């Protein structure tokens, strides 16, 4: 199957002696504001011969904090993992606890979760399009349009949860509160306007010569290597691997919706950008269907326990297709009110595993684009 992974060994020796190389420390204040991430890059001229990521500037040991807190009091912390997508994180955690304790979720709450998760996907991919252009030097204009639309969605989140970003909205067995009057109508209006915005954004980007020359054939790896490296989400699908957890292992009520999984061909940075645009079109489809079908009923399971919640002894691993990849939670319960072990499977962190492999042999300027195309958030990488 995978005959030779040694080529990708992180300890592969550079061709030149160490003192003939130029060592550059990129970061920790990375100019493209992906966060406090540092890369120690060794260059032969302009060419990257080794790249060592340095983590931990944002480390607060989220997992240890969660072991010392009740299950519910970790919910606000999940907002701060991938702080672009708090509602997806909420869902992933709630789903893991529901699996651990065997809690049912009422229908209306499932629909609310799908709507919120897909709106979050729109936010993430839109912001991504702005950030990646910033990485290529088009600082400001694309990001301005992206953030204009993002802010419209954040307004909806504020109406619903009281907070633009740090939502703390999901509960074990449903959601925290019901949709305010008229909220679904506002989402419908936003969804109707989103297609034209995407057309405009694609017009701005797709044929752009600078974008094409900076992204095509940059950073591609083979399918086998990507799967072996644990790469998930749009990065994996851009290389043509048909693996989206919403289809492969449908959680929530995703099996009820008609949508498709866009796939790329080469897996280069261009495909990674395009795949996110296509995913947004599919998210709009899901949102339309979910808004049409949104049933009445309770927004949280009537028997869901808020106080004195103690799941039975056991463990559970649950995962969702987050905007950045597979977001999983592995929980171990010893029957007490706090988790014995609380593990986040962070897509941003694991998607960085192959960063060096993607960058070797390319120019330093490509490193910035490749890092941008992975779409990381340091709140999740460092936890």
């Amino acid at each position, binding site marked *: 199957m995978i005959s030779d992974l040694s080529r990708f060994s992180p300890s592969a020796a550079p061709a030149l002696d160490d003192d003939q190389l130029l060592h550059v420390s990129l970061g920790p204040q990375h100019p493209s504001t992906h966060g406090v991430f540092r890369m120690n890059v060794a260059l032969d001229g302009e060419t990257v011969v080794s790249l060592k990521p340095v983590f931990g500037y944002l480390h607060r040991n989220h997992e240890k904090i969660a072991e010392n807190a009740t299950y519910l009091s970790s919910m606000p912390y999940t907002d701060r993992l991938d702080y672009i997508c708090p509602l997806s994180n909420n869902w992933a955690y709630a789903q893991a606890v529901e699996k651990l304790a065997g809690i049912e979720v009422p229908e209306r709450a499932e629909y609310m979760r799908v709507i919120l998760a897909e709106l979050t996907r729109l936010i993430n991919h839109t912001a991504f399009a702005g950030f990646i252009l910033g990485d290529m030097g088009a600082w400001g204009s694309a990001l301005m349009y992206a953030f204009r639309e993002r802010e419209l969605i954040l307004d909806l989140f504020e109406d619903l949860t009281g907070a633009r970003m740090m939502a703390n909205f999901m509960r074990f067995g449903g959601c925290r509160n019901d949709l305010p009057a008229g909220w679904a109508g506002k989402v419908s209006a936003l969804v109707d306007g989103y297609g034209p915005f995407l057309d405009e954004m694609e017009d701005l980007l797709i044929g752009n010569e600078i974008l094409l020359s900076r992204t095509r054939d940059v950073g591609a790896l083979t399918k086998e290597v990507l799967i072996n490296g644990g790469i998930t989400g749009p990065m994996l699908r851009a290389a043509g691997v048909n693996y989206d957890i919403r289809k492969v292992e449908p959680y929530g009520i995703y099996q009820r919706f008609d949508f498709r999984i866009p796939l790329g061909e080469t897996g280069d940075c261009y495909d990674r950008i395009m795949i996110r645009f296509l995913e947004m079109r599919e998210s709009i489809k899901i949102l339309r269907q979910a808004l049409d079908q949104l049933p009445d009923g309770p927004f949280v399971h009537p028997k869901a326990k808020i106080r004195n919640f103690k799941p039975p002894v056991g463990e559970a691993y649950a995962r969702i297709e987050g905007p950045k990849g*597979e977001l999983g939670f592995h929980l171990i319960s010893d029957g007490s009110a706090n988790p014995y072990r609380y593990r986040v499977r962070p897509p941003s962190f694991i998607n960085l595993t192959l960063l060096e492999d993607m960058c070797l042999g390319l120019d330093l300027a490509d490193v910035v684009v490749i890092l941008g195309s992975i779409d990381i958030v340091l709140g999740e990488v460092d936890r």
Partner: protein
Amino acid sequence: MSAPDRNPTDQISTDRESPDSHAGELPSQSGEAGFTALQSEAPDSPAALLARLRDALPQAAITLRSNPGPAAQHSLLVEPADLTDVCRLLRDTPDLAFDFLSNVTGVDWPDPAKADAVAVPADGEATTRTAGGFLEVIYHLYSTSRRVGPLVLRTRTADRGDHAKIPSLVAIYRSAEFQEREIFDLFGVEFTGHPDLRRILMWDEFVDHPMRKDYVAPDDYQYEPTPHDAVLQKAKRHYPAQQ
């Protein structure tokens, strides 16, 4: 790096022009033929996999551990010495094809009875041996081609001290690289054969493993150790070797 000239608009099979010829479509759009949760029936239940593994690797000590919770994700307990053989077999056997190591979790079990309560041994099988506790590493494997999972593998160190060693899976699953470094950093499990085993989240000079259950957090990292009595006492507890 001159790119072959290609039409940017048809690079990804888009759905807008020709909705019927979408390359990304799954065999079943409604999802009913999609996924097999591993925990239910043969041939992918952990018990069936255990029988196959025992056939293929008769010398390996593998036992089934059941999960008492509602999730019912049962696991296979593998001895560290057999771990790489088992994983290689799981990855390379065509009709198993567990090609994707999704998640690696480290767990500290100072009390082995608690570990047996979460991962219950079958009747008549030995419970966990080490009196002083051990560290455990749990792997969640999936097959992307067959769309099954998770297969939960767990392996345990001999103790929580000098023999906290487990063979590295980086040569088999590259996705373990950073996750094993994280467990080395936060739990102190030494992954033998890892190509680049360094701390990853804590800084290099840090001396302890914060995710261990008996870890004592210092009051204040920035000024530690401070001359104040209470803080100094706590700092001494934290670094007993320096007293």
